[in-house]
Every structure is written in structure tokens, then in C-alpha cells.
């Protein structure tokens, strides 16, 4: 997902306190920043929310790539609004992480030097306008699958951030579907581009949910703590089931010959993505990893004089006010 393969941190707290904490979660109570919490819960959440926030921020890059080249002024305004939302989502999430005792600068530095990850999906390029439609439709669609249940997560600030995010996310998916539908219903060349975007982004989108449950050994503790609400395979299946009719409506070919309705299961069967590709992208070898990290590092470096200048100005103003009093 936007947070993939977040390993639950081990916890060495007083068993009695741990049991009382778990009981609170089981009763559906929200944990707030000042409440007692196991160290493992705190650390795992910092990793998870931080990774989620980084994904929102890095996720602006593949779409920002097409703002100046949008086909119409209206599409440009829409894409700009969407990318602006992503920045906002990143900020909601960073603030939620900061309530756990990590600073914004620490989180940023961990992203920039590779100690923290962002979603594998953003290491794929957006080659043309059809990709922008496909990203909104598939990538935001996959994100919604994960974010909707996270509105009920046990950590209060994370849950409230997710509620805000989900309210805004429907626009993202709809604008993407609307854009790709225009192309699927357009000239044969446009339809071909839509098909090509779907084919290229399908498996990377399925990878967003993380490795298959049989290889995902870290989720049990996170599920008990209600910071992970569903297994990877559950969400992936839900995504496939929801998306297949949307593909059919567009009149596009299914991107995977393995997609078939399974009457017995009541779900679509599908082919698993190539997990060796996924692990390779996570390791830093995707098509755009180097570009993405370089762009974030440059933004941080090039923005330093603005951050420092504004702070110096604020300090000068405060000193003047103080002197006048």
C-alpha cells in the first residue's frame, strides 16, 4: 500500500500494561498521543504513518510531470488541484506522526537518505497523458481500498487524518477514470494509449498492497493493534473485483489473461504480480527510484535558503516587537 512491508517492532513492556492496552483496543477505544502505549506500537506507527506521508509527497512527482502538458486548461486545473491535495495529505500525515514524538525534519531526513521508504508504485514513470488517467483511477483506487478501513484504526490522530484524506480521495479516482474514459471512447490511437497505460500500470498497482499473505509475516501484531485492518491479499482481491467491471465498461481488454470470474469463490481469479520485480523496486532498482530521490533531495536543498530566510525574518520581527514593548 502507501505503507508497504512495515515490520511490527518488538515490544518489551510490562505484560500487565500490555494486556490493558490491548483490551482498550479490543473495546474499540482510540489511543491518543498522551496515552500510555507500547514502544513497539509507537515505533511501528511512526514507520507506517511516515511511509504513508512520504508516499503522498513523492506521489506528486509522477503527476506533477504532466501539469504543464495537460491537454486542456480544464484538465490542467483539475490535475493541479489533485496534486495540491496530495501535498495536503502528506501534511496531515506528517502531523499525525509528529504526535508520536518524531520531528518533521527527522522524518524528511530519513526519506532523503533512504532510511525510510515510500510506496513502490511511485518508482514507475508516467510516460504520457493516458498514464495520468490510469494513475488516478488505479493507483488512487488502490490507495482508497486501504485508506477507507484505516479510518477505523486505533490511533486517534491517524484515524482523523484518514477521515480527511478519504473525503478528498474520491475526486482523485473519479477524475482519473473520467480522463481515461475520454481516451478509451476517443480515436483508435487514444484508445490504444489507454490500453497501454492500463497494461503497464496494472501489475505495479497490484503490488501496492504488498507481498502475498503467505510471505507477509509481520502483519499479525499490526492487525491486533488495529493499525493494519485487512491482509494484503484481502485488499488486493477487493481491488481486482471492483476494477474489472470498470475496465469492461471502458471497452478495454483485461490486462491479465488470468482474470476470470470464479463462481465458487465469488471473486475474480487473477495472476499474481512478479514479486521479484517488487522486491527489486523496493531495493532501489525501479525505473525511477534515483530520479525520485534526487528530486526530493534537490527540493530540500534548493529550499533551504527560503526556510532559513523566513525563520530569520520571523525572529527579527519578534525581536523588534519585544524591544517596542
Amino acid at each position, binding site marked *: 500500500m502507501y505503507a508497504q512491508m512495515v515490520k511490527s517492532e518488538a515490544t518489551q513492556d510490562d505484560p500487565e500494561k500490555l494486556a490493558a492496552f490491548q483490551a482498550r483496543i479490543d473495546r474499540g*477505544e*482510540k489511543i*491518543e498521543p498522551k496515552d500510555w502505549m507500547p514502544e513497539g506500537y509507537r515505533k511501528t506507527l511512526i514507520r507506517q504513518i511516515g511511509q504513508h506521508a512520504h508516499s503522498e509527497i513523492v506521489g506528486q512527482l509522477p503527476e506533477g510531470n504532466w501539469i504543464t502538458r495537460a491537454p486542456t486548461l*480544464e484538465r490542467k*486545473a*483539475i490535475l493541479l*488541484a489533485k496534486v495540491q*491535495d496530495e501535498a495536503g495529505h502528506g501534511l496531515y500525515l506528517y502531523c499525525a506522526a509528529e504526535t508520536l514524538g518524531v520531528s518533521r525534519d527527522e522524518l524528511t531526513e530519513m526519506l532523503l537518505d533512504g532510511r525510510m521508504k515510500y510506496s513502490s508504485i511511485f518508482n514507475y514513470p508516467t510516460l504520457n497523458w493516458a498514464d495520468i488517467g490510469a494513475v488516478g483511477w488505479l493507483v488512487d*483506487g488502490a490507495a482508497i481500498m486501504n485508506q477507507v478501513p484505516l479510518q477505523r484504526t486505533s490511533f*486517534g490522530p491517524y*484515524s*482523523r487524518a484518514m477521515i480527511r484524506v478519504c473525503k*478528498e480521495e*474520491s*475526486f482523485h*479516482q*473519479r*477524475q482519473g*477514470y*473520467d480522463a481515461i474514459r475520454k481516451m478509451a471512447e476517443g480515436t483508435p490511437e487514444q484508445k490504444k494509449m489507454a490500453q497501454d497505460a492500463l497494461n503497464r500500470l496494472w501489475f505495479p498497482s497490484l503490488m501496492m498492497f504488498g507481498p502475498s499473505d503467505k510471505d507477509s509475516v509481520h502483519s499479525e501484531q499490526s492487525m491486533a493493534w488495529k493499525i493494519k485492518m485487512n491482509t494484503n491479499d484481502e485488499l488486493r482481491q477487493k481491488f481486482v473485483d*471492483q476494477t474489472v*467491471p*470498470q475496465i469492461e*465498461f471502458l471497452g478495454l481488454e483485461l490486462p491479465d489473461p488470468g482474470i476470470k470470474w470464479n463462481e465458487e469463490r465469488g471473486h475474480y481469479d487473477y495472476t499474481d504480480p512478479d514479486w521479484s520485480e517488487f522486491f527489486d523496486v523496493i531495493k532501489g532498482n525501479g525505473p525511477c527510484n534515483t530520479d525520485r530521490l534526487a528530486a526530493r533531495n534537490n527540493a530540500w536543498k534548493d529550499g533551504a535558503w527560503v526556510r532559513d530566510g523566513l525563520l530569520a525574518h520571523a525572529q527579527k520581527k519578534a525581536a523588534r516587537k519585544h524591544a517596542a514593548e
Partner: protein
Amino acid sequence: MKNEWPLWEIFIRGQHGMSHRHVGSLHAPDAEMAIKNARDVYTRRNEGVSIWVVEANHIAASSPGDKGPLYEPSESKVYRHPTFFDIPEEVGAM
């Protein structure tokens, strides 16, 4: 009036999981007393599970007169609302 206690803005979390909401203000000599007073003034009928107090002069607020420049620009950006996009019923909820 020289020794008047400062004004504090009071925020109460009504029930677990919700955000703190502004409920009103009161005077108190310091933060600790402000919380105690807020408990007496604003939570006598179980209205809250958590209290935040902020000294009023630490709150920066937009002025009502800026309503136009602040909020009117978003009126023309109707595409920020999901209903702007026509999604056929056959494709399901989106």
C-alpha cells in the same frame, strides 16, 4: 484591572476518537488552573474525555473582512468535488 488573569480558550474532546472542539473561554492565572476551571465550567455533565487550553493571545485568527479573498477562489474550483465527474452507474461506487 492590573492583575487580571489572562484569557484561555478551551477545547474539549467530546468522545474518544473525535477532535477537540472549541467550546468557549475562561480566565485563569496559569495553564494548570485553566484546565481545572475548564473541567468545572465545561464538563459538569460528562461533556468530555480530554481538555486542551490555549492562552487566547497565542491564537492568531483570520479577520472576517478577509472572507472574500480567502474563500471565494475555491468557489470556481468545482472540480474539487467528486460529483463534478459523471461516473456511470454500471462501474460501481467510486
